[in-house]
């Protein structure tokens, strides 16, 4: 501001004293993020789907059962965004829900809407892990905020968030309460390989009640599958239908009985549309609708080759 007359000393002093005072508090951040995530989720999913999902998330907490420490997660989970589809097999185990679910919902949402069914489809192992994350979120607000403001200052949690190998769910969870459901996946979501989750510093939370992702359902595999679908989503967002298709083929190969088959089939429809292969898209869509008539993705699949809405 050189060349302009400056403020009086008194004014300057006032501004210096007040400068930091308008920053959001931890609770401001958490509250707004939660509300925004919910609105975005609703924007992503059709209204009815979102309503169902939210309901499922709330119910999932109760149904989740398991470790008593899960109660820590309940608060967050109740605030959780659109979780889980009623249709998915694992629906009952959705205790995980919470923002992790939101991450899935909005994160994959844009084009895929994998989202909605995703958490519901998660196996028990991942649910355990996600619940663990949720509990962590619920109990380390302070860390979460610090992590957000200055990653360098918050050694364990922040660094964990940074280095977290699990693409969407953990990225979101790792950043804690202030972490908005990832709207877009990281450019190249790292694939989960066996053991990486176990290497995750569960100890940092001091809640051994949540064995990290090694539940009976094979959470590691599921996370890998989820990461792959995130890549698909990224490709679709980049309008790279070819890459999306290749990734989906990889998905079929690696996870022939994958928990996210429904989502990947829907994604295939979107990818084919993206490539202008409408006839094939219709075939796949038809099969999808026969096999999953009640899928929350069904409306989206039905309209897949219509002009993409400019917003979601």
């Amino acid at each position, binding site marked *: 501001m050189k060349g*302009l007359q400056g*403020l009086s000393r008194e004014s300057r002093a006032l501004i210096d*004293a*007040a400068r930091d*005072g308008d920053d959001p508090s931890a609770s401001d951040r958490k509250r707004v993020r939660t509300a925004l995530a919910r609105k975005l989720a609703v924007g992503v999913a059709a209204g009815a789907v979102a309503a169902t999902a939210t309901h499922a998330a709330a119910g999932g907490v109760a149904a989740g059962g398991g470790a008593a420490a899960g109660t820590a997660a309940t608060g967050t989970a109740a605030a959780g965004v659109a979780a889980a589809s009623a249709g998915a097999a694992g629906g009952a185990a959705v205790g995980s829900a919470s923002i992790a679910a939101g991450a899935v919902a909005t994160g994959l949402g844009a084009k895929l809407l994998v989202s909605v069914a995703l958490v519901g489809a998660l196996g028990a192992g991942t649910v355990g892990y996600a619940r663990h994350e949720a509990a962590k979120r619920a109990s380390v607000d*302070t860390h979460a905020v610090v992590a957000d403001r200055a990653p360098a200052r918050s050694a364990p949690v922040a660094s964990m968030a940074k280095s977290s190998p699990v693409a969407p769910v953990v990225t979101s969870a790792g950043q804690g309460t202030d972490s*908005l459901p990832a*709207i877009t996946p990281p450019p190249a979501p790292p694939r989960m390989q066996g053991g990486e989750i176990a290497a995750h510093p569960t100890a940092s939370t001091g809640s051994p009640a949540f064995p990290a992702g090694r539940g009976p359902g094979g959470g590691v595999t599921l996370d890998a599958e989820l990461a792959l679908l995130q890549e698909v989503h990224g490709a679709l967002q980049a309008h790279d239908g070819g890459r999306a298709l290749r990734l989906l083929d990889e998905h079929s190969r690696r996870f022939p009985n994958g928990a996210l088959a429904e989502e990947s089939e829907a994604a295939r429809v979107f990818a084919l549309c993206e490539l202008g292969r409408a006839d094939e898209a219709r075939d796949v869509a038809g099969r999808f609708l026969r096999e999953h008539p009640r899928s929350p993705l069904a409306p989206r699949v039905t309209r897949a080759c219509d002009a993409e809405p400019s917003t979601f």
Partner: protein
Amino acid sequence: VAIEQPRFEEVYVEHFPFAWRSVRRLGVDPSAVDDAVQEIFLVVHRRLAEFEARASMKTWLFGIVLRVVRQHRRTLRRKPAQLGGAAAMDPDVDQVRDAAERGPHERVAEREAVRTLHAILDELDDDKREVFVLAELEQMTVPEIAEAVETNVNTVYSRLRAARRDFDQAVARHRARDQWRER
């Protein structure tokens, strides 16, 4: 080479505090701050693809902040705060910082300063206020401000000059009132 689009999550994390501060400083009533900030980021989310990388994200975002705030102003302008008056119990101000982060004395002093700042900002005309907030509180440059408020540099200079003058006078008045009150 395609320009890499910023991710919404990154934009949100980086700029949420800026949006929050700006909304508060531009005179939105505390009860409406949450809504205004959410609205801002809903617009950001919807329009992120339109963001042109040659602009700064902060100035682009502030354009959105301004539009939302102007809408809110029409309905929900902050009630003029009187120093030491009802605003002293404004619960919103109690949350300005994490309690654990600072000592109680610092927080009280900061809260008081924020209250005074808002009261004085409330006395400025809207266009001066916008420029003043960006220049003095966000420390943006005049060209950046011109972009953010969509006007030319000369206009920003003249608004800023007037805003500083008004601000100084208002501070002096407040100080005088305080002294009178403490007597």
